[in-house]
């Protein structure tokens, strides 16, 4: 149990460092506007154990969000998005439950549940998370077009990087 927590924490710190040091500075776009913002830290919430109570899930999400906010200098935006992510993770897991139930696996990783399943799970959550995050970041409805553009392009790139990370490291806890 402790070993798992430790492994998770190391994985978490590495992920956050990657996000803050590398991915924060990638703001690619074309024309005048920057459409691509890569966010990989939601993976942290995605990899938490399946049976964890929702309240703890949200509190952890809030904490991680605050840390990211600290470095992005945008108090509250990332936290809000992660709390939302944590809130909808549980109902989604219930919907995506494979026929046999989650019995063996206790964390929703591709090692336990298969890459296909994981991709579905991650894609849905990441897309919703990005949508929520960019909506809060822009905060107005007149720039709706930008919200959708940012969501779609950032989503594509975030997914690519998450896929890469997961395939390379393949966490087993």
């Amino acid at each position: 149990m402790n070993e798992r927590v430790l492994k998770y924490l190391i994985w978490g710190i590495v992920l956050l460092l990657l996000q803050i040091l590398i991915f924060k500075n990638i703001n690619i776009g074309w024309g005048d506007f920057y459409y691509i913002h890569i966010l990989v830290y939601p993976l942290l919430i995605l990899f938490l154990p399946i049976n964890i109570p929702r309240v703890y899930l949200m509190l952890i999400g809030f904490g991680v969000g605050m840390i990211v906010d600290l470095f992005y200098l945008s108090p509250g935006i990332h936290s809000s998005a992660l709390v939302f992510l944590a809130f909808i993770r549980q109902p989604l897991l219930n919907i995506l439950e494979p026929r046999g139930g989650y019995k063996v696996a206790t964390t929703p990783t591709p090692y336990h549940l298969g890459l296909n399943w994981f991709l579905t799970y991650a894609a849905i959550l990441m897309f919703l998370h990005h949508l929520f995050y960019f909506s809060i970041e822009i905060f107005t409805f007149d720039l709706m077009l930008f919200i959708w553009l940012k969501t779609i392009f950032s989503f594509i790139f975030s997914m690519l990087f998450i896929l890469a990370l997961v395939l390379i490291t393949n966490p087993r806890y």
Partner: protein
Amino acid sequence: MINLFKFLVKNGAVFVFLILQAFCFWMVVTFNETHRTIFLHNSVLVTGGVQEKITNFYDYWSLYHLSDSLAEENAQLMRQLLVSYTKERGYENREGAAPDSLDIFPAKIIYNSITNRNNNLLINRGLSHGIDKGMGVTDGLNGLVGITSECSEHYCRVLSILHTQSSISAKIKNRGYFGSLVWRTLNPHLLHLESIPIHATFEVGDTVVTSGYSIVFPENLPIGTIESKELSQGSNFFQVDVRLFNDLSKAKYVYVISDPQNEEKRQLIKPFMYE
């Protein structure tokens, strides 16, 4: 306490979600400039309408005091205006001339009548407020109300201009012809301007103002307009009807004009005074 916490963990997901989101929202709106501006702008749009209705409601209850303070302010302004009217004649530069100044007191009418042959009013200011008998009472700068006739400590009786004994010295504005303004009909809007000589030139519609030839009212206070002028056979004077500017049935706040030099003037004019 621990039980409460356990209960919250088990069933309170939505609740915790809402609390955390509210907290995050507060942080977003407080610490990010663009978000703050957008939020404040939109919240003002929403609360603006609600606020207006609320203040309208509360304002209604303070109208009583508001109108009192407005009457005071009006009195101050009137005082300055009337002093400037008299100063225009240029008398302040003459050696030994009496200083021109007026005191104006706002008051409220607490008793009124317009339907009798002789009408009187009661106002809620008296001797203790600095008012004495023989002072002119006007309805702001809209018209005349009367002349104070008797005063007690806190109240004053005013001889309304709608009184057969009332006689105001009035002139036709810019023409110079002056006469006495009296009330002979029972119509609360029409008065007669007597003693306008037959050779006077003026027209229906001209304004009638106070002449300044009295110790009661300063010059050029508006009274009304000429409604008709008639010349009857064998008379040397016109019959001029004057329609008042102000409606005495609706008068509420009035202003009492007091001239500090009145006593001095009254002593000289006493043998000739009409009252």
